[in-house]
């Protein structure tokens, strides 16, 4: 187990590399989902406004 984390002495390079990539992967998921949620809320608001104008 120790050897695994040590990565043959390269731990200081390998793990940050994986961390950065994981961060980017997660960030993209969060970003995309938030964009969709925001777009839906925007669309809902726009339609409500229009409905309000029409009535």
């Amino acid at each position, binding site marked *: 187990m120790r050897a695994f984390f040590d990565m043959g*002495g390269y731990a200081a390079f390998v793990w940050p590399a994986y961390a950065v990539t994981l961060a980017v992967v997660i960030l993209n998921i969060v970003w995309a989902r938030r964009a969709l949620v925001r777009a839906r809320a925007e669309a809902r608001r726009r339609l409500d406004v229009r409905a309000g104008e029409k009535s």
Partner: protein
Amino acid sequence: MTWTWFHRLGSPPYVYALAERLTPWFAWPAALLIVGGLWGGLVLAPPDYQQGDGFRIIYVHAPSAWMSLMVYTTMAVAAAVGLIWRMKVAHAVAASCAPIGASFTFAALVTGALWGQPMWGTYWEWDPRLTSELVLLFLYLGYMGLRAGIEDTQRADRASAVLAVVGVVNVPIIHYSVTWWNSLHQAPSVMRLDKPTIPASMLVPLLMMLLGFTLYFAAILLVRLRAEILSRERAASWIRAEVFAT
């Protein structure tokens, strides 16, 4: 050959529904492949005789670099389709690609630097591949900046599409730079027409990661695409049904 499928892709509600249905079909296999690839690459693959365990960075660096190029190419193709056939949906695809590509170009540069330091003794070198990858990052940022700077959506679409197409010349430069010039970077060992030179135990996890990331990109793209389509369709009737049906 009928082109109806192509024309159907020009319809935002059709694409929206299709994107919603397809997303899980890309997301779950992507997750499986990435987890499997990580296991194979970090645990199962033996250490490299030259680079020891340090070579394992390849399992995040190569997919990131692959993403940066593949996403840009997708963006450029979508932009070209949008320009030629005047398809709004194509422009929406291009817009959705940019942030994904930019973030993975950044990841490629950082993971590359972290790999370069122990292997070549330097975090950065102004060699052709690294420099042109940095140029790619600026192209993404320029694309997003241009979009943000133009208020009219249609003009923003078309202007940024021209930029995307002009910049695509950088992609083959990045890929072939290691064969055209004496570069610090190693020559291609996977993307070759003859047999790759790395052993299967190392190659298979790498291929899993590359495929996994590609499917992951498709899933993220489909989510962003839905958001783009929603924000572009002003008050179309299909949106009402879609948005109020929670």
